[in-house]
C-alpha cells in the first residue's frame, strides 16, 4: 500500500524503472545484433565475376533472399559442376555456384538442378536450357586468342552447344600476312547461355574467352536512344519525309 502511495505522489516506481532499463538493454542489444548481421549480409551480397550461379538463378539480390542453401541442386547435378560456397570462395556461404574453367555447365535438357530447388531461387519457369542466362561469354583476350592471331584454333566455337548461333566465326582481313583471313570467335550475347564450355576448353594457359556476369559483359544502351534505321523500318519509311536534302556531289557527267 505504501508503495502504491509513493508511486502516486512522486510518479517514481523503481520496478518500472528497472523494467524500462531491462527493455532498453535488450532493444540496444538487438539493434546492435541486427546491424551487425545486416552489415555482414550486405557485404556477402556481392558475387565475384569469376563465379557463376546455376541455370535459372534469380538476379543476385533476389537470389540471396530465396536460396536456403540446402544443396539439393548440387546433389542433382550429374556432372558435379555445382558446389556450395565455403568461406573465402566468394559467393555467400552455403550458396551454389560453379567455375566454368573447372567444370562448366553441361546444359542438361531436363535441367535437374532447377527441378530440385525447393524455393524457386532457381526459377522453375526455366524449362528450356537454351533460355538460361548464367552469364555471357566474352573474348577478353583479343591479343592472345589464337584465332585472333590468324591461326585456326576454333575450339571454343566447336564446343559451343549452340554452335553457329551463340558463337560464330566472323572473318576479317589479316593485315599481318596481307593474304589470309582472321576467323574471330564472335559471341552473340542474346543467345549465349553462359554455360562456360568455351572457357573450359580454351587451349591457352589462361582462357582468352571467359564467361562473365551479364551486366559486366554487355553494355546497355540508354532507354532514350532511338536508332534511326530501326525506327525507319518500324515506320515503313522515312520518319519525316524530305527533311534533309543533301547536295549531290556526283560529277555532272556520271549522273
Amino acid at each position, binding site marked *: 500500500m505504501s508503495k502504491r502511495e509513493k508511486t502516486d505522489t512522486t510518479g517514481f516506481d523503481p520496478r518500472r524503472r528497472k523494467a524500462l532499463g*531491462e527493455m532498453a538493454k*535488450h*532493444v540496444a*542489444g*538487438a*539493434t546492435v*545484433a*541486427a*546491424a551487425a*548481421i*545486416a552489415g*555482414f*549480409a*550486405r557485404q*556477402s*551480397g556481392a558475387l565475384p565475376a569469376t563465379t557463376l550461379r546455376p541455370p535459372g538463378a534469380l538476379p543476385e*539480390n*533476389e537470389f*540471396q*533472399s*530465396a*536460396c*536456403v*542453401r*540446402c*544443396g*539439393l541442386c*548440387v*546433389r*542433382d547435378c550429374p556432372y558435379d559442376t555445382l*558446389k*556450395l560456397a*565455403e*568461406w*573465402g570462395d566468394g559467393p*555467400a*556461404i*552455403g550458396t551454389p555456384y560453379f567455375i566454368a574453367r573447372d567444370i562448366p555447365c553441361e546444359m542438361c535438357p531436363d535441367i535437374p538442378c532447377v527441378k*530440385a*530447388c*525447393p*524455393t*524457386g*531461387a532457381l526459377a*522453375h519457369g526455366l524449362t528450356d536450357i537454351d533460355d538460361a542466362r548464367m552469364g555471357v561469354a566474352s573474348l577478353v583476350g583479343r591479343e592472345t586468342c589464337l584465332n585472333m592471331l590468324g591461326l585456326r584454333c576454333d575450339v571454343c566455337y566447336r564446343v559451343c552447344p549452340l554452335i553457329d548461333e551463340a558463337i560464330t566465326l566472323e572473318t576479317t582481313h589479316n593485315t599481318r600476312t596481307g593474304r589470309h583471313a582472321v576467323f574471330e570467335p564472335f559471341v552473340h550475347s542474346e543467345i549465349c547461355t553462359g554455360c562456360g564450355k568455351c572457357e573450359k576448353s580454351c587451349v591457352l594457359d589462361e582462357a582468352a574467352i571467359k564467361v562473365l556476369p551479364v551486366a559486366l559483359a554487355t553494355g546497355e544502351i540508354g532507354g532514350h536512344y532511338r536508332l534511326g534505321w530501326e525506327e525507319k523500318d518500324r515506320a515503313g519509311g522515312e520518319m519525316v519525309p524530305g527533311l534533309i536534302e543533301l547536295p549531290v556531289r556526283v560529277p555532272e557527267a556520271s549522273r
Partner: protein
Amino acid sequence: MSVKRIPGVEARRKHGFLTANRWLIARRLAQLGFFMLFAAGPWFGVWIVKGTLSSSLTLETLPLTDPLILLQALVAGHKPELTALLGAAIVLGAYLVLGGRLYCSWVCPINPVTDLAAWARRRLGIETDWKIRPQARLWVLGAVLAASAATGTIAFELINPITTLYRGLLFGASWGLASVLLVFLLDLFVARHGWCGHVCPVGAFYGIVNRTAGLRVSASGRARCDDCMDCYAVCPEMHVIAPALKGDRTGTGPVILAPDCTTCGRCIDICPERVFRFTHRFDQRLDTPAAEPGATPQPATREAA
C-alpha cells in the same frame, strides 16, 4: 558441504549406468541417427535424405524445410515455390503437435557441442556467467528477421552454426565450422548455456512453437524430491523445473509446461529419486507412494504437505 556434489553420481549408484543415462543415450542416438539419414548418401551412396537441415527431400518424395529459414526468405521478399512452403508446413505442424524444442535436444547438431561445454564447465568448476536473461534470444530472433527484411537476404544463414555444421560434414569441411567452435567457447568460458539458452534465434523460434507441445516431462513423483538439486545442475533451461517440481505449494500441476523446456529428459535420468517421467501435456497424475517401487523410505512426510 565442502565437497562439491557431482550430478549423476548418486543416480548411477542407485539405479545403474544405463537407467541413469537412458534418455541421454537415446538422444545421442537420435542426433546421430538424423545425421546419418543425411550422411548415408554422400558417404556411402545410400540416398535416404538429400539436402541439409535447411531443406531436404526424403526418399525422393517428402520435402521438409526449416520454417524459420523460410520465414526469413518471406520477410526478405521472396515468394517461395510450393515445395518449400509445403515442407515448412509439415515441419511446423509436427513440432506444433510434438513440441518445437524437441528439435533443440533431439535433432540439432549443436546440442552435443553445448552439452559437452556444459559438462566441461561443471567438471572444471568454471563459474563465470553473464547477466543476460533467457528472453534475450527473442530479441535476437527479432534482430535476425529485421536484418533479413532490411537486406533482402536470409541473414542468419550467413552465421548459423547449426546448418553450417551439417553442411560442412555433408558437403565438405568448411571454415564456417569456426562458428561451432565459437559456440563451444562461449558456453564453456563466457556463459552457462549461453548459446542455446540465451542467444540462438532458432531455439527462440522453436520455443514459441513449443507452447502447444504434446510431449512433456512431468514431475509426477515430486513428493519424493529431496532437494538434491541434481536436476537443476544438468537442466539446460533450469528455470522451467521449479514451477512443476514445487507446484505443491502453489497448486500447480506436475507437468513442466514452460515453453523453454527442450524435453531432453536429462532430469529423468539424473534424478536419484525418479521424480520425473515423460508423458503428455494433459497428464496431471501424481505418483501414489505405495505403487512406486523406487520410493524412498520417508516420502510420506512430504506427501502430507
